[in-house]
């Protein structure tokens, strides 16, 4: 199982994976148990001459306990899964930190318009610049993204960060992440958005803070004031 996920490069990615594995081992246990029971019963109770079936209705509590007690255990495990998941959900989606870097991403058919704050670090100023389908972020910084869409519903998906959020036209939705490992990764669209949906790919680059600053400076100079 391990090894199928894309490499994790975010602070909270491991937590998401951990909830996955928690569920995996819990349901895996039940899965194996039930399948073994099925096969065992099928072999043990296959028809044999002169051995009639047992007339058990399962309408007495003593019999039903075989079903209800395991179901109660399922209930307890469910609540455990809920508790574990809720904490991670709150980290990723509900309690957003202020963010060291604030970007705006606007989706449209079929590209991602990424607006950077420029060297002054503030959005809405003259040195902002916009780059098509290239998401650059500094390593180890809390990145805050305000997500919008110009036309249809898209979905902002960073597999390596374990982050996904639909971009809904008419709304702006904030999200955050903190990438811990430099490198070049991919930004994908995960919601059907038209005939070019499959081409709506962006490059996702995690730079060292210095390299990021340099990249921003270079682009601000080239496209500054745009």
């Amino acid at each position, binding site marked *: 199982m391990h090894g199928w996920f894309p490499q994790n490069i975010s602070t909270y990615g491991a937590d998401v994976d951990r909830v996955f594995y928690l569920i995996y081992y819990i349901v895996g246990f039940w899965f194996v148990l039930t399948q073994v029971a099925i096969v065992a019963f099928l072999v043990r109770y296959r028809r044999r001459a002169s051995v009639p079936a047992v007339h058990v209705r399962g309408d007495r509590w003593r019999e039903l306990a075989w079903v209800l007690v395991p179901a109660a255990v399922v209930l307890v495990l469910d609540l455990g899964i809920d508790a574990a998941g809720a904490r991670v959900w709150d980290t990723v989606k509900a309690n957003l930190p202020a963010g060291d870097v604030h970007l705006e991403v606007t989706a449209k058919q079929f590209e991602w318009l990424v607006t950077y704050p420029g060297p002054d670090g503030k959005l809405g100023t003259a040195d902002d610049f916009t780059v098509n389908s290239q998401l650059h972020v500094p390593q180890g910084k809390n990145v805050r993204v305000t997500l919008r869409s110009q036309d249809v519903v898209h979905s902002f998906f960073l597999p390596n960060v374990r982050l996904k959020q639909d971009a809904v036209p*008419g*709304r*702006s*939705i904030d999200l955050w992440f903190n990438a811990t490992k430099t490198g070049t990764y991919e930004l994908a669209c995960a919601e059907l958005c038209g005939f070019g949906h499959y081409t709506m790919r962006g490059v996702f680059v995690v730079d060292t803070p210095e390299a990021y600053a340099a990249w921003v400076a270079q682009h601000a100079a080239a496209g500054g004031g745009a």
Partner: protein
Amino acid sequence: MSDTARFPSYVAIWSWLVALLVVGLMCAFLPFGKAMAIFLIFTVAVAKAFLVARHYMHLRSESLLIYAIAGLPVLLLIGLTIALVPDIVFRR
């Protein structure tokens, strides 16, 4: 069961409905506060619907099954509406 009990006075109920219609209109055009006016208007509407359902649709004399059939969707709708408030009303 006597005939009068079987058939309530439909005309009397109609008069009540018309009276409530007038009350509703008055609530809308008299100088109440907005919240108060809306509250009154919808109280009147619920009263009218209640009269029609109870007497004209004979819910008065229907079995529990019919109440369940009519009541369940109303409950579901209230639930649906409440659940949508955070998303639709307070959209970001």
